[in-house]
């Protein structure tokens, strides 16, 4: 039986994105196959519902502050201030990471796991420490790189340096898509045979949990649908990575050809004002709905009320929200730059900059029931083809490979 030290940054319900969801499902599937997992998080919170592994908190920190200020905003690294920093003075995410490393070091003085499995740059330093100081094989799992987060525009050099070191020293790297593997190979100069592509699957809790769409929640949108409108939605953080200004421009072009379209932008972020301004500038404010940040039932209501879900990302390592939307019967439009497009064929695709094609696709689907039905039929069998147990099998193969490294040492 393998002992795994899993280095993570969040677990549901204390998660702000897909990273925590992926970590939880992956760990659960591995545990089902017999792995013993200690999972480290940088905050202190109850995870009562998790019984298949030990969740260890690295420090006394409120889950809200684990990123310093502003979740995922890696460009504020070194700058951000945490109000009322608890205990030791943690003023930025770097301090949180420092304490996280210290905890891992103390842990390794006492325990000898077979493999250390680190998720994203946030925990790579701790992973490197385990590898360098304790000789434990390191698996680096890349859910997103700094290039993705910055919309392929460079990003924060500090983060790049941490990513590079982790990727160089890892015995094996797991990338969530071929697109991510390509970035790791091309931008970080890592040999391709060190990187395995393992796609994510849909959240099991999401699939299992009882959900009933209540058409009263989005009464306005339902009414518009009754008048023949098509609802197009997107979900995510409003950052450059998500390509939302391209989507807004495409929306304006699509509306010029088909008036009966409503675009729902679900989420929040630094580009909110810019997107609002754009919609006003194009004179389509009436056709654009901002929901603010949504999660849980509210998020599922967005999927449920929508006809078309657009993943407009400039770069998207995987893009789990697309599969969630598909689960709720949405037809998908994906950028060719998103990982999910590698596994889903029953979707329309475009290059993130190709606003004309995106507009064309939105109009085509809204005007043709036949196209919508054909896409829907195709995706209904496709979106849940990969299970987390399949994912676990692939990860275990990686573990066995790096375990052999240990014997060689």
């Amino acid at each position, binding site marked *: 039986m393998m002992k795994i030290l899993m280095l993570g940054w969040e677990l549901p319900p204390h998660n702000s994105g897909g990273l925590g969801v992926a970590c939880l499902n992956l760990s659960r599937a591995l545990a089902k196959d017999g792995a013993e997992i200690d999972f480290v998080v940088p905050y202190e919170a109850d995870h009562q519902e998790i019984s298949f592994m030990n969740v260890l908190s690295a420090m006394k920190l409120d889950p809200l502050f684990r990123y310093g200020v502003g979740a995922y905003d890696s460009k504020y690294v070194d700058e951000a201030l945490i109000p009322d920093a608890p205990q030791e003075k943690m003023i930025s995410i770097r301090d949180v990471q420092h304490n996280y490393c210290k905890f891992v070091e103390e842990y390794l003085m006492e325990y000898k796991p077979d493999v250390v499995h680190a998720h994203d740059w946030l925990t790579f330093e701790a992973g490197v420490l385990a590898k360098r100081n304790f000789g434990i094989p390191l698996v680096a799992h890349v859910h997103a790189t700094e290039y993705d987060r910055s919309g392929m525009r460079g990003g924060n050099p500090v983060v790049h340096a941490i990513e590079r070191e982790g990727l160089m020293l890892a015995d094996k790297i797991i990338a969530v898509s071929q697109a991510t593997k390509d970035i790791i190979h091309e931008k970080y100069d890592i040999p391709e045979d060190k990187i395995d592509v393992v796609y994510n699957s849909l959240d099991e809790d999401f699939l299992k949990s009882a959900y009933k769409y209540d058409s009263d929640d989005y009464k306005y949108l339902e009414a518009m649908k009754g008048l023949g409108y098509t609802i197009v939605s997107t979900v995510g953080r409003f950052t450059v990575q998500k390509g939302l200004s391209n989507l807004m421009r495409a929306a304006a*072009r699509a509306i010029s*050809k088909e008036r009966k379209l409503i675009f729902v932008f679900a989420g929040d972020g630094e580009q909110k004002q810019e997107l609002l301004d754009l919609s006003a500038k194009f004179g389509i404010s009436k056709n654009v709905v901002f929901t603010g940040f949504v999660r849980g039932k509210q998020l599922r209501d967005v999927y449920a009320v929508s006809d078309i879900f657009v993943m407009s990302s400039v770069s998207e390592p995987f893009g789990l929200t697309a599969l969630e939307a598909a689960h709720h019967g949405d037809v998908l439009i994906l950028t060719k730059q998103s990982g999910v497009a590698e596994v889903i*064929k*029953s*979707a*329309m*695709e475009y290059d993130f900059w190709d606003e*004309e*094609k995106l*507009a*064309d*696709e939105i*109009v*085509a689907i809204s*005007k*043709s*029931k*036949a*196209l919508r*039905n*054909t*896409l829907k*039929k*195709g995706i209904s*069998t*496709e979106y849940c083809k990969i299970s987390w147990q399949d994912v676990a099998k692939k990860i275990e193969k990686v573990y066995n490979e790096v375990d052999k490294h240990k014997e060689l040492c």
Partner: protein
Amino acid sequence: MRAICLYLHIHQPWRYRRYSIFDVAHNHNYWYEKDYYDKQNNERIFRKVAEKSYHPMLDLIERNIKRYPGFKVSLSITGTWLEQAAEWDNSLIEQIRRLVYTGQVEIVGETYYHSLAFFYDENEFQEQVKMHSDKIFELFSVRPRVFRNTEFAYNDEVGRWADKLGYKAVLAEGWDKVLGWRSPNHVYKVAGAERTRLLLKNYRLSDDIAFRFSDRNWKEWPLTAPKFQDWVNMDALRGNLINLFMDFETFGENIWADTGIFEFMEQLIAGWLKEFDNKFVTVSEAADIEQPVDTVSMPETVTWADTERDLSAWLGNDIQHEAEKVLYDMKSDILRSGDPDLVSDWRRMTTSDHPYYMCTKYWSDGDVHAYFSPFDSPYDAFMYYMNVIRDFEWRIQNLNIQRMKLLGEA
């Protein structure tokens, strides 16, 4: 006496380009993609196939016709191919004319646009068959006497229609489910018709060449001409007529020259004619080779495609049905417009390749090579197709408006 009936099908569709919704009403160029290297560029594709297949194979045929008076070939050539050849490489048409004039090459009739019109609109179907016959007569001074429907889509109605029009024979698939214990190596009668004969493709021997020849995992690879001739001799024990029906592009395009496919054919022709009492026949000669041994009935449509041998590659999902329906629904408006360019553009959209590009049968299995298409996805193919249809609608409306204006002025 044993006879090989070699029949080759020559076709290129007018692929529509990625015609955007923003082109509609502004730009009526559907067929000429400006970027030469684009996947929808018809000229590039035609020239490429001409170089790899049309020229070398026509040369091979011409060489052997000169060498052996007993070598015969039948060709079916679509109108859309002839239009493109006239535009980009007229020497191909001239060469085919020389071949036809030797009397050793017969031309088979079909719809001008390689369409599925038979299943949607009988008048349009008749019109397209007549257009094709006229075009063949104009270029080659002969009229087809044997008929094949697009993709070999055959049922008893097709046979009876051909009988009514006086065709000697119709070509169809020799599918086991229809034939049962009977052999495709005989001449059959069309169900419900007295004169017209059915010639059935020997799909095993045809596919040995057209599909398996270059397959290195095939246990019979490499296939040599003497080995194939042995198989033909064996197969001839259950009937003396061997119908080898396939796409012309098999030679050089689907199966590349470096596999030795041209040398194989050259040797097969020579080897076959060397044996006593062996010959090649054209499709008309094949129909007369013996009295029909039985009647073959196909109430359901049978094609030469896929393991299912049905129309599901063309009419298998909602978008394919929708595409054909909206097209034929607008026919009377198109014809009434009196605009010959619009009529021609509309007819080019009836080509069966277009719904074929929208096939989703194996799409999500990741088997992207199962269906060749110039588009990134079946959904893209449908989207651009519908934009072309929208432009047709706009052109009809626009012509009506102009006509009203003229009336008003008068």
